[in-house]
């Protein structure tokens, strides 16, 4: 029995499924791009940089600038909060926390990643928004800031686990080489370990940024969804994902509005994918 039939079959089934997955991905890209193509042809870059979104006016006006800027505000804002917190926490877990505490916190983080975004959005909208209104005395609390706050909590676990893994993978010899000189743990962490883990921390933060940019439910419930260009972090805005979620259900299939929503999808996809691809490239190049 030299060649095992079932073996060959398994191999080809595997390849078929793998190819199928690839096909599905490509069709996700193609569908989203394809459905919006006519509108891109018609409007070109003004679709991307136009500041007006009036899908039901006659003639309708489609510009995604407001959404793009809103996405940037909410996701970048989330990073401003989550990156320092996540990196500190990751370092704490890897280098400082006693074993049991580290295990407890990692379990906690694991649980946090399991909580769905609609619950985060709900809690944000029912707790943080009223709190924000009270503390800052603003008439209406939904804002990109609140969205960032909740997004930060949502993506912090990814940053922590990336940082933690990066520090754990540093050979003990580096720490030892520092300790034998009698310098403090903090000094070693800052001068020796952080540079070694740097690349991985950057990629953890970048990936978290991608997730924050694509997150839907939380921003839908928190960002305020107004059609003004958000000039500050504390303005309201309507991120790309929220726009799609809000309007896709009511848009007539094939109408310009429908195409415009898919165009928003293209922008979001391009945005997130370029982050992921550059990360992939960055990581692979570093490995060689």
């Amino acid at each position, binding site marked *: 029995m030299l060649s095992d039939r079932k073996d060959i079959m398994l191999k080809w089934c595997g390849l078929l499924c793998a190819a199928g997955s690839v096909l599905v991905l490509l069709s996700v890209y193609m569908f989203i791009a394809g459905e919006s193509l006519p509108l891109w042809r018609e409007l070109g870059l003004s679709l991307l940089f136009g500041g007006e979104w009036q899908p039901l006016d006659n003639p309708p006006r489609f510009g995604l600038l407001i959404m793009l800027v809103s996405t940037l505000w909410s996701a970048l804002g989330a990073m401003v909060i989550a990156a320092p917190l996540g990196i500190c926490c990751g370092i704490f877990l890897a280098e400082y926390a006693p*074993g049991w505490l580290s295990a407890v916190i990692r379990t906690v983080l694991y649980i946090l990643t399991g909580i769905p975004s609609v619950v985060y959005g709900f809690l944000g909208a029912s707790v943080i928004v009223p709190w924000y209104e009270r503390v800052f005395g603003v008439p209406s609390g939904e804002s990109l800031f609140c969205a960032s706050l909740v997004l930060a909590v949502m993506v912090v676990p990814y940053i922590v686990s990336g940082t933690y893994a990066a520090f754990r993978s540093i050979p003990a*010899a*580096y*720490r*030892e*080489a*520092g*300790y*034998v*000189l*009698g*310098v*403090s743990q903090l*000094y070693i962490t800052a*001068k*020796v370990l952080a*540079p*070694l883990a740097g690349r991985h921390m950057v990629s953890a933060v970048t990936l978290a940024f991608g997730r924050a940019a694509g997150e839907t439910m939380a921003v839908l419930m928190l960002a305020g969804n107004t059609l003004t260009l958000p000039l500050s972090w504390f303005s309201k805005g309507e991120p790309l994902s929220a726009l799609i979620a809000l309007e896709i259900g009511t848009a007539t299939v094939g109408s310009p509005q429908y195409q415009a929503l898919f165009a928003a999808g293209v922008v979001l996809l391009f945005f997130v994918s370029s982050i992921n691809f550059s990360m992939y490239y960055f990581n692979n190049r570093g490995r060689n």
Partner: protein
Amino acid sequence: MINIREFSAFYADKQVLHSVTAAFSRTDITAIIGPSGCGKTTLLKSINRTAELVPGFRASGSIVLDNQDVYCVGEPAAVRRQAGMVLQKPVALPLSIRENILFGPKYYGVNNKDELEQVVTATLTQVGLWNEVRDKLHSPARELSGGQLQRLSIGRSLAVHPKVLLLDEPCSSLDIKSTRLIEALLLELSARLTIIIVTHNLAQARRVAGQTIFMSEGRIIETGATAQLLEQPQDPLTQEFLTF
């Protein structure tokens, strides 16, 4: 000058050093030899208190360094600074060559520019690297060869002015030429430093060490002048080890 008395060490419940007693003189090199796992590294790390970085490590007995019991000092950092240690596999900190040397001094507050320059030049000259690396002080230290890196490690320790230098098989991954360079360096340093070297290479012990200690299973079996111990071992365990 180091005096170890009745020193025992444990990793969690496992005793790896049993009532070790030994003395190391200021102006000599002592070699520690013994089969793998007998506790050589643990003894070395106990002296500069890095053994306690392993969770669960416990020790009893005393190790006196210049009239000061190292286990009575509250903060181990002070002890570690006084007893520099060089590891088996040379470690390049992820910094430039220059910054590797200055890693300790900067922590200890040297920040005058001229002074720093001075430390780099002096240290590198001392370990015989100056001519080899003077043109690439700012390149990453990992670009050095194994032998150069090991000398850099020694230099990194020397830069904080230790009284003792502990070396754990410092040449086991190096070629013969680098080994000889390091041995020469150690002989030179031995005039001012207490040096303890763990080695698997008996010829190396013979070349550098005045005193040799043979350990087995966490105990010191025999101590003596190197030539004496290697040629005419008294203890049957030593004999067996040397003839194997």
